[in-house]
């Protein structure tokens, strides 16, 4: 068959992000939703800015513990990483001396669940900001 050679186009490379990625990660980590606000997604950004610190505050109010980073206790170390992932609220709570936790409190485990989940959700929010910055969303 006489035909033209197939002209398959290579998929166009996405344009480079308009803002430095490392700054997006840093802002998204320190201020939950901050990266979305900066990237022009104010509704999402405000939702994260309210919900994630609120979850963190509920965790502290439920007498959850901010776990120390101790590699001798791997599960506690993972929990510490998740706690730190929430960004500034973690450092503010530490500076205020809260987050000691009270294991005898009925809400202790719930408090831990809120604290850890807030950090893990913020990590997902940062990944979402990454996708937005690269034009995937």
């Amino acid at each position: 068959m006489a035909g033209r050679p197939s002209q398959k186009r290579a998929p166009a490379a996405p344009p480079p992000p308009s803002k430095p990625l490392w700054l997006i990660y840093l802002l998204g980590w320190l201020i939950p939703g901050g990266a979305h606000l900066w990237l022009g997604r104010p509704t999402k950004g405000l939702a994260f800015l309210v919900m994630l610190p609120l979850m963190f505050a509920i965790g502290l109010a439920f007498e959850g513990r901010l776990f120390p980073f101790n590699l001798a206790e791997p599960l506690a170390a993972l929990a510490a990483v998740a706690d730190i992932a929430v960004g500034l609220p973690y450092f503010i709570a530490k500076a205020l001396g809260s987050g000691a936790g009270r294991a005898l409190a009925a809400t202790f485990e719930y408090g831990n669940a809120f604290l850890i989940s807030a950090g893990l959700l913020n990590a997902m929010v940062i990944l979402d900001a990454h996708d937005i910055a690269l034009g995937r969303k």
Partner: protein
Amino acid sequence: MGTPSHLLLMSLFAACVAIVGGVLMHDTLRQQARTAAEIFGGLMASALVLGWILYVFPL
């Protein structure tokens, strides 16, 4: 203040996670609300089912 209800605390946790999950996954309010409702329902249903299953195995 008495001991808070576990169901209430679980619902609060599920609601928070559902809202963040819904907002994270979609851009329109309608889709966000739908996904949040699905996540909330899934978390509550799975917790209740697991609770009933664990009831058979007392520690």
